[in-house]
C-alpha cells in the first residue's frame, strides 16, 4: 500500500463529497435535524401503568381493574408469555394469579400471587401494583391479609433509573445519521464508475488495494465522525465511552462495506438512494426494537446492526461493561469481515 496515494485519494473523495450540494446538505443538516428531533422528544417518562395479567380463573373483583383510570390491563394465556412480555419491557408490571385462587379464598387459605416487574419499573409502580392487588383481595374476601405476595424483577434491575424515550431514540437517530453517509459514499462510488473516472485511476501505478483502502478510510471517517459528534452532543458517550466508540467504529466499517455493496448494485445517485433506503430500513429494525420494546423478537439478531444497536444501548443506558458486550462486538466484527469482503469483491467485479 502506498500512503501518499491513499492520502491523495481520500482528499479527492472528501473534496468531491462536499462539492455535491446534496451530500453536504445531508451531512451538515442531517446532524442538525437529528439533534432537533432528539431535543424535542420528551425528557420525562410516561406514567401510565401498563399491567399484564395471567389468571386461569379471574376473581370477579379483578374485573374492576379494567375500569381504573390510567391503567392498561392485558390478559396473557400463560405465565411464560407474561414473563416474556415483561422481560421485553412491553409491560412494566404483571400479575400472575394461581389457578386455585377462588378455592383458596373460599377455604380461607392465602393464595400466592406473583408480581412481575420490568427492570426499569420504578418503586412507585411496584408499590402501587402491590397495594392494588392487596386491595382487590380485601374486596374479594373482606380480609386484610387474604393473600401472600411475591415480587420478581425480570431483566436487568433498573431500580429508579428509567430511561426517557429520547435516550432510547438517540441510538436510532445515530444509526440513521451514519447510514445516510453510507448512501452518500455508495452514490459517490457509483458516480465514479458511471463517469469512467475509476478507469482513469486504474491505469495509474495506484493499486486496487490503495483504492479500496482510501474508500474505506473515507467512508469510515465520515460515518464515525458523524456518529461520535451526535452521541457526544446528546450525552450518549457519558457511560462506557470506549465501548461505544469501539461499537461505533465497527458499525461505521459495516455501513461502509454496505455502501460498497450498494455501489456495486447502483448505476446512479437515484438507484443508490433506492438501495440505500432499503438497507436503512432493515438496519434500523433493531434500533426500533430498543425505542419500542417488545416490537421485535429474536429474528432481529440475524440483522448485523442488532449487535451495534444492542451494544450501544447496553453500554450507554445500562453501563454494560466489556464483559457484557464482547460477544456482541465479536459478532459485529465477524459481520464486518463478511460485508466488507463481499462489498470489495462486488465492486472489483463492477470495476472490471
Amino acid at each position: 500500500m502506498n500512503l501518499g496515494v491513499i492520502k491523495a485519494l481520500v482528499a479527492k473523495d472528501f473534496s468531491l463529497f462536499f462539492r455535491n450540494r446534496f451530500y453536504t446538505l445531508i451531512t451538515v443538516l442531517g446532524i442538525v435535524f437529528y439533534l432537533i428531533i432528539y431535543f424535542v422528544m420528551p425528557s420525562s417518562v410516561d406514567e401510565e401503568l401498563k399491567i399484564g395479567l395471567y389468571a386461569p380463573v379471574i376473581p370477579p373483583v379483578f374485573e374492576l381493574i379494567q375500569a381504573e383510570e390510567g391503567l392498561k390491563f392485558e390478559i396473557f394465556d400463560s405465565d411464560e408469555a407474561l414473563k416474556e412480555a415483561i422481560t421485553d419491557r412491553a409491560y412494566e408490571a404483571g400479575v400472575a394469579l394461581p389457578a386455585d385462587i377462588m378455592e383458596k379464598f373460599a377455604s380461607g387459605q392465602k393464595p400466592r400471587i406473583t408480581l412481575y416487574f420490568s427492570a426499569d419499573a420504578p418503586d412507585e409502580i411496584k408499590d402501587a401494583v402491590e397495594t392494588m392487588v392487596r386491595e382487590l383481595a380485601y374486596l374479594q374476601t373482606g380480609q386484610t391479609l387474604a393473600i401472600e405476595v411475591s415480587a420478581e424483577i425480570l431483566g436487568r434491575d433498573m431500580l429508579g433509573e428509567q430511561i426517557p424515550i429520547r435516550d432510547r431514540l438517540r441510538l436510532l437517530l445515530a444509526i440513521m445519521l451514519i447510514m445516510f453517509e453510507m448512501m452518500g459514499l455508495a452514490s459517490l462510488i457509483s458516480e465514479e464508475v458511471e463517469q469512467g473516472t475509476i478507469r482513469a485511476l486504474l491505469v495509474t501505478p495506484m493499486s486496487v488495494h490503495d483504492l479500496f483502502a482510501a474508500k474505506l478510510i473515507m467512508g469510515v471517517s465520515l460515518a464515525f465522525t458523524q456518529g461520535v459528534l451526535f452521541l457526544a452532543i446528546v450525552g450518549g458517550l457519558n457511560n462506557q465511552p470506549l465501548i461505544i466508540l469501539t461499537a461505533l467504529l465497527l458499525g461505521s466499517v459495516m455501513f461502509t462495506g454496505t455502501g460498497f455493496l450498494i455501489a456495486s448494485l447502483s448505476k446512479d445517485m437515484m438507484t443508490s438512494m433506492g438501495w440505500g433506503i432499503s438497507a436503512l430500513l432493515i438496519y434500523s429494525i433493531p434500533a426500533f426494537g430498543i425505542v419500542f420494546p417488545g416490537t421485535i423478537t429474536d429474528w432481529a439478531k440475524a440483522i448485523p446492526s442488532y449487535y451495534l444497536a444492542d451494544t450501544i444501548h447496553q453500554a450507554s443506558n445500562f453501563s454494560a461493561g466489556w464483559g457484557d458486550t464482547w460477544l456482541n462486538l465479536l459478532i459485529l466484527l465477524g459481520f464486518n469481515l463478511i460485508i466488507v469482503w463481499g462489498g470489495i469483491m462486488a465492486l472489483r467485479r463492477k470495476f472490471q
Partner: protein
Amino acid sequence: MAQDAIVAEELTYWYGDLVAVDHISFNVAQGEILGFLGPNGAGKTTTINMLTGQLKPKEGRAILLGMDVAKNVEKVQGEIGVCFEETNLYERMSAIENLKLFARLFGIHPFDAGDLLRRVGLAGREKDRVETYSKGMKQRLMVARSLVSRPRVLFLDEPTVGLDPTSSEAIRNIILEERERGATVLLTTHDMMEADKLSHRVAFINQGKIVALDTPHSLKQQYGKRALKAKVATESGELQDREVILDTPETPNAVHELFTQENVVTIHSEEATLEDIFISITGRSLIE
C-alpha cells in the same frame, strides 16, 4: 537496435462467445507513432485495455518496455499515459486539481500543472470547474492528464473525435511534440487524414485481427492506385472526365495521347486514401 516499446504477441480476448481480439501480434518501436485504425467494435479498445493492464489477455501476452504487462501492471502503468475516448474527468474539480491528483498518484513532486495547461491552451481557465468546459477543452485536459507523468508510452484513443478544427490541431501538435520528446504513441482514430499525417505506420484492425500493417506510403503503393484525373472539352464544348492510371507500362503513352489528342481543361493527380485502402482490404468502411 533499440528495444521495441510495445510488443503484442498473439494477444487474444473474448467476451463469452464473442472473440474481440483474435491472436494479434505487432510491435511498436520506441519513439514511433502507430496509427491503429478500424471500425467500431473491431477490437481496438480491447487491445488497448490489454496493453495498459486494464484487461488480462485470455491468450498471448503484452510486453511494454520489456515488461510483461500482466505480471507488472503497476510498474507498466507508471510508464504510460492513457487518454480515453470518453471524457472521464472529475467534473466538480478544476483542471489544476484534476492534474495535481494524478501527479500525486504517479508520485510526481513537485509538479507544475500550469505548464501543462499552457501547452494544451487551457491557461486562464485552470481554476474553473471542469463541468463548465466545452467538449474541446475537456478533451485537451484529457490529453494533458495523460501527459502528467511524461510517459514513455502514450495511448490515445480517438483524441480528436468530435472536436472543432482548432482543438484538433492543438492536440495533433501535442502528439508531434511528444514524438519529438521520444515518446512512443499508439493512436486510434477514425480520421484518416490525421492517421496519415501523424503516424509512422498504421495498423488496420478488423473483426479482432490485424489485416494490414505498414507505413501509409507503402500501403498506398501496395493497395491503392495513383491516377491522373483530367477534364477535357469535346468539340461541342461539353466537359468530360478522363483518368490515366499511373505506375503502369502504358502510362507514358496514355499521358502523351491525353495531351496530344484531347483538349485538356484541368488535370490533377489523385492518390488512394487510407479509407479507400481499408475498404479494398476488408470490404467495410472505417466509419459504420
